[in-house]
């Protein structure tokens, strides 16, 4: 089983629980959770150590909520895309908003996909497969 690292940026504990469950059901349990945009950026740029406290590692992909405290999802995306160290990390947005403006801004910032909650693990796998980011199969 490929234990590729996944960064989940989610502030709501229920959503975090549901996202982790969906990933786990697809065999993906190497997940680091950031509870807001600031934590996510600190982790990615190595200036902090959220989650398990280890050294920062580049995740295989990021699951990003949009509505986040401190620095919101769109801002996080913008910072990532403007830095060469993080510019190429695939991002899947998980949001409860179906607003056209959110969708179009995310696509402008080059997200892999935009999913609405509740998260379906199967859907995530489909997207990763299509993008050839997965070299393992679900259990």
């Amino acid at each position: 089983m490929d234990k590729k690292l996944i960064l989940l940026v989610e502030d709501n504990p229920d959503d975090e629980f549901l996202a982790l469950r969906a990933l786990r059901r697809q065999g993906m349990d190497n997940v680091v959770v950031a509870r807001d945009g600031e934590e996510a950026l600190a982790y990615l740029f190595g200036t902090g150590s959220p989650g398990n406290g280890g050294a920062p590692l580049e995740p295989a992909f990021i699951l990003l909520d949009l509505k986040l405290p401190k620095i919101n999802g769109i801002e996080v995306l913008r910072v990532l895309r403007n830095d060469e160290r993080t510019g190429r990390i695939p991002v899947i947005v998980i949001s409860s908003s179906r607003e056209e403006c959110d969708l179009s801004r995310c696509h402008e910032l080059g997200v892999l996909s935009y999913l609405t909650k509740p998260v379906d693990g199967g859907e995530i796998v489909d997207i990763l497969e299509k993008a050839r980011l997965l070299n393992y199969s679900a259990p």
Partner: protein
Amino acid sequence: MRWVTRMDPRSFERIIAANESRLCDQVLRYALERGPARCEASGQEALRSFVAELSRALVQVFLSPYRATIPDADAGHSADPAETFGMAAAQRRRGNGESSAISLEIIKFCRQSCLDLVREQKFPTIEEEETLTLLERFFGRVETVFCAECASLTARASAELVAANALLEREIARHGKTAEALERSERLFHTAIDALAAHIAILDCDGTIMAVNRAWREFADANGFMGDDYGIGSSYLAVCDSATGDDAESARTAARGIRDLLDGSCREFHLEYPCHSPDEQRWFQVRATCLKGFDPACVVVAHDSITEVKRAEEKILSFTRELEDRVRQRTLQLELTNRELEGFCYAVSHDLRAHLARLEGLGRGLFEDYGSNLDSQARHYVERICLISIELRRIIDALLDLSRVTRCELSFRQVNLSNVARSVAEELRMVQPRRRVSVTIAPNIVVRGDPSLLAMVMKHLFGNAWKFTERQQAAEIEFGMTPRHGLNVYYVRDNGVGFDMRYAGRLFQPFQRLHSPGEFEGVGVGLATVQRIIQRHGGRIWAEGEMGRGATFYFALHS
């Protein structure tokens, strides 16, 4: 005749000849005093020669053997030398254009002079008497001839005079008629301009006022006009040129306009100007027109009060301003409300949906992870919770769609509805590949509109048709176009369950369903959304149907 023999004719001749020049002077003086004689040299000469002629004739007659035959003036005699002379003299004088009346006067004067002369000579009484008689007779005959001449001349002159008189009378009558017509026309002119409400002045080619009307006079009276005769006879242009104060500029513009009319460089001119009195705001319009067919030129100046029009205009302007203000305020309020609404929608979209998604996710988790531990009743509860939260999410999504199609900005482009219909039908077939549905789509139906919203219209209409034909063995769906009342009307027709036309009005209201919830799925907002989209395109949508015999949805855009 005794006296003839005693009188020495030569002495008489001498007396007459010696006194001829004295006589002439007397005649001339007389003529000058009486005034009728022509006093220039030729006239005096004529008198002189007439006196000489008389003297000669008198002497001749006096010396002739016929002197005794001179009859009384009253007696008729044909071969009388005095008469012969008289006739000849009269004829000559007539030929020379001398007046016979004046000649007669002169003859009478000469007679008196001669009689006085003879009396002055102190002849013996008998001789004197005879001479006097002879003189009386001679002059009497000559006078008679001249009298006759005068009479005949007078008769002729009077006949001429009568004729001239008649002519004159005719002329006078003719002039009388002309004068009457003139007066009538003058009266008509004054009455006509008096009847007009405008203040009118008529100017001659120098800009001098020739006539004014009643309205002009009344305005002058009411406004304390100081000049004479309401300005008639004074220069309108000079008044305009010398205006001061607020009116100066418009007065000078008017003067320029009238000068242009008078020199023929324009035919009509008008100007609006304020003319406020101390207690009233007033406006006038002056219209000056050059009268056709008058040379030298003639101008009519008419001042009309446009105060009412101006007041109405100002009122409209202030209303408009007020309205604009109100619209601005309302727009501001609307913008605020819209922003609030958008905020609300965003919150609903994000937060409400987020909670529902959690409910749905947790329910599914419960079902999937612990389903085997639950009895069938408990599983049913969990299943219902999941389905209801899914349903609720759909309703919220549909409502958000409805609000979005109302709020969003439209971007108009060419849209091929036939292509849209085809891809919508394909999607439906992919979802339910087992259904047997014959779909007919008229090719190349191209309209102008917002592509994503029109796609939503086709999706809902085809979705409905697909849904309501699901019990049909051979379902048919058709998309096409038909002209109606000069408009292109597009339609989606199906042979499904149809509807009762009595409830057609409720079709497009949100959450109004014509079928019970269990019969067909859907939240009941689709057609309301479709109607909003069509309305935002300036169009109209309506439906025709019959229970069990299908339905047709028609729509027109930009009607």
